């Protein structure tokens, strides 16, 4: 779909008239809600769960941490992994006791428990399998028109991975250039089997070309470090990420109606009407990294 928008903008640029400008807008504020940002991986490193409070949409203040909460992740074997707010800044952290120690195991389910004030919340998520990233390759690219805020010339990187047979594997592709995550909302790449959506019928396929290219939200220079991570994610996280992306980049003539991004975290007491926002997911991670070496670039493939 993005391609079509691109053509559209291309035409408007030719006509030279479309424009966007930031304006002042006043909206009604809602009640303050607890936000739980709990994305835990199977990497042997410190894992952080962030608790904060919602703010009026146009509030200029910084993030408001939610302090004094109890945050525990339980494995399906009922082993508790407490997360502690070490710096009293709403970042609740679990650290491996010894190197190589992991919180998660592929195939197991985990439960999140949060107590904030008198309210208790929980969510359950499963660690799905993740295929290895087989390789990276890159070629020299020069776009005919300079993209806005992006490089016109450099190396375009593709990553190769194959979706394992069995429908419904979902992933999150995360690309880093010189250890900086490409973190624009439009750069969030969620994958369903080897393609963009459940209807893609890409089960068991090599990730399709546009997904391979998501290693390169922008071009790389020679000697830049490329790192690509592939997170396995539950299906509901796939839809969550899709919405995060579409709701943060939802403008223009083909925008969809803004909608709330649902959460998978529930009050423990069904009668509790105080809903939280955010998401709990557990991921297995595979990754690959390299340094761009011009002499190893492949010839530019046709049509790229």
């Amino acid at each position, binding site marked *: 779909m993005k391609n079509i928008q691109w053509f559209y903008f291309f035409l408007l640029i030719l006509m030279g008239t479309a424009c966007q400008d930031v304006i002042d807008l006043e909206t009604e504020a*809602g009640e303050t809600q607890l936000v739980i940002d709990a994305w835990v991986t199977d990497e042997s490193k410190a894992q952080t769960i962030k608790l904060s409070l919602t703010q009026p949409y146009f*509030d200029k203040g910084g993030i408001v941490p939610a302090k004094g909460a109890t945050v525990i992740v339980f494995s399906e074997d009922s082993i508790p992994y407490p997360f502690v707010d070490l710096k009293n800044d709403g970042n609740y952290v679990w650290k491996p006791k010894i190197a190589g120690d992991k919180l998660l195991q592929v195939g197991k389910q985990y439960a999140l428990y949060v107590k904030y004030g008198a309210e208790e919340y929980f969510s359950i998520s499963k660690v799905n399998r993740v295929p290895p990233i087989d390789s990276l390759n890159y070629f020299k690219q020069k776009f005919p028109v300079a993209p806005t805020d992006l490089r016109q010339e450099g190396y375009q990187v593709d990553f190769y991975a194959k979706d394992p047979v069995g429908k419904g594997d979902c992933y999150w592709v995360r690309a880093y250039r010189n250890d900086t995550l490409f973190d624009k909302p439009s750069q969030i790449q969620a994958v369903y089997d080897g393609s963009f*959506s459940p*209807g893609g019928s890409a089960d068991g396929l090599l990730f399709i070309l546009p997904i391979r290219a998501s290693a390169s939200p922008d071009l790389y220079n020679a000697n830049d470090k490329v790192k690509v991570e592939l997170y396995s994610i539950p299906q509901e996280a796939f839809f969550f990420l899709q919405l995060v992306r579409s709701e943060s980049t939802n403008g223009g*003539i*083909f925008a969809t109606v803004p909608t709330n991004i649902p959460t998978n975290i529930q009050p423990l007491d069904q009668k509790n009407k105080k809903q939280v926002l955010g998401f709990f997911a557990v991921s297995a991670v595979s990754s690959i990294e390299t340094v761009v070496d011009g002499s190893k670039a492949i010839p530019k493939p046709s049509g790229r």
Partner: protein
Amino acid sequence: MYKLLLALLVVFVSIGHAAAQDKLTISGYVKDAKNGEALLGATVFVPTLGEGVTTNDYGFYSITLPRGTYDISFSYVSYLEEKRQVKLENANVKLDLELKESALVLETVTISSERVDANVRSIEMSVNKVDMRTIQKMPALLGEVDVIRSIQFLPGVTTVGEGATGFNVRGGNVDQNLVLLDEAPVFNSSHLFGFFSVFNPDAVKDVKLIKGGIPAEYGGRVSSILDVRMKEGNSKKFAASGGIGTIFSRLALETPIIKDKGSFIVAARRSYIDVLAKPFLSGDLKDSRFYFYDLTAKANYQIDDKNTVFLSGYFGRDVFGADFGFDWGNTTASARWNHIFSDKLFLNTTAFFSNYDYRLQSDLREPNPQDAFRWNSNIKNYSVKPDFTYYLNSRNKISFGGQMIYYTFQPGKAEAISGGETRIIGQDSKYAIEYAAYLGNEQKLGKNFTLQYGIRYSLYDYIGPGKAYTYGPQTGERREPISTQTYKKGERITRYGNWEPRFSANIGLGDASSIKVSYNRMAQYLHLLSNTAAASPLDVWTPTSNNIKPQLSDQIALGLFKNFKDNLFETSVEVYYKSLQNQVDYIPNSDLLLNPELEGDLLFGDGRAYGAEFFIKKTKGKLNGWLSYTLSRTERQIKGLNNNDWFPSRFDKTHVLNFVGIYDLNQRVSFSLNFTYGTGTPATFPTSKFIWQGYALPHNFYAQRNGYRIPDYHRVDLAAIVKQKKKLFGTGEGEWVFSIYNLYNRRNAFSVYVRQSEDNPSQTEAVRYSVFGSIIPAVTYNFKF
């Protein structure tokens, strides 16, 4: 059902025979003296009796009167009135007539027929006709004369925003307008994502928008009918016209086949920015394609006094891309046969084919067997449609007929190749048949009372081969199929039938005013699935199925029509209320393309629209034009959205004010001005933000939809048309059109949306998106000879 209609028909016809013994009929065609084009809606009037008729869509009229001698007047707006004395003594009279266009439209003394108050007298209400000559004088975006952009200046017509495809009539969605080009439906009326309509102004003769009081002969969409009729082509002599504009270059040729017997017209347009840009493009862009074109053609031949045939066709396409290509377009073809059974019974039979399709392909330039994506989608339909008009007597005009439409849908099928392995994805083809039969009568009761009543029955079969899914009962979220049934070819999956009553009345109040009232029910079996702000060329038409019910609308309208100063000013006030059933909406994050289970992503509900439309039009004089004001509301109530409460539609505009003014300085120079004002369209904004993984995300605590409005829209456009003094090639005419769109350079918002700040992702901002952020001047040169 057919039996009932047939019985009614027999009753009507037998009344006619009983009453018509001592009466005789005058019938014939009214045409333009200059080019032989049939004049639609010309008035044939008998002053001594105070009775008259208008010509039908093919210029045919028939009027039955007691024996005697009559002075009959033939008139048509901005044509010179003709009078004929007719002796009705022994036999019916056949009288074909040609009217001459008045030399100067601005001549104040052109015609003074008693019947120029047709807007007051006729049974039609909620109908707007726009003269092509007016459309051609109005200021146009980039100087490109455009039928659909022009009708947006009429009361009751809105759009979701500048540059959006289609139009919205009295609170109806874009897909609820039956857009007909010579009776064949056009499924996507836009070029370039909505900026220009597909109708070539050089080939259009007549444009009529029916918003209410819809007669029984029309059906298939619930909100309006846009009936576009193409020129037949000059049957007197060869003629050429065309022009070079900012976007299109145009050429139309028309010529007699046999003088006064048959003619044809071919009109073509193509955008040429790619041709101009070519020398400046290099590298990969050199092969890029971006253009759109259309070809419109029509031929007619009068076989004899009783038989005339017409063939018309349209083919248009938008093409974009280089390696990755995207193209889409409509094709329509219609064949029509006019047959006069007797002086009283007129038949038009139309057979048409209409197609809309699009194609996306990632490996256009060089096929890539390893990694490619090739996607196509189409809707095709084939139809036969006989329409009879029986001029029973001067007080009753009966229409009856039917239609059968066979649809095939290819909602989207794609071939996805990754690493050399191919997968076919998307939806299976779908099939449906729609039948309709109707019977109606336009009846005059006394001098001041006219009725039009009718009934239409539509029957719809959704047929195999195909799969029918049954979904779970939950609403507001994606529903998965709980069972699937497979049907064989031709096997009926589901059937719906609807009675569609139609009624209009005109009560005359003295000489130049009347009250009109109408009711109509309409049924629609097709749905355009579109979850974006503006409809896009990718949107898919989907049939009514076991899960999607037919859309229904009921509309009542009441109007007061009054003319002032000897019909110099036409005014009307209309109020309407429309209720809509089985309206389609979408779950959040709905997946409508290439999704076999897309029905599980649909939500259903009701709609309602009501409003008042005020219209004043100055028909003659150096300064002419109109002013319209609409006060309206349109809302939807969808289970699973907005806490199940009513919410305003995306295109709801409380106030809309439009002004179109044309000033003819002299025969050579004319000026025109448009002004439009509309309340900002509704929008949904968040109440709160929350930070997740560094992203500042919006959240609406109250889960409200369309609770806010974007800034009001207003705009002024200007145009000047200057005809050249020198004749082209001796007899031809050339003219320059200078136009300025968005004169005072206002950045009208198409939408306002929120996003996280580019510089600081934890901060948020609101953004006004304007499709046209500046003043747009343009120059066009037109010629004809």
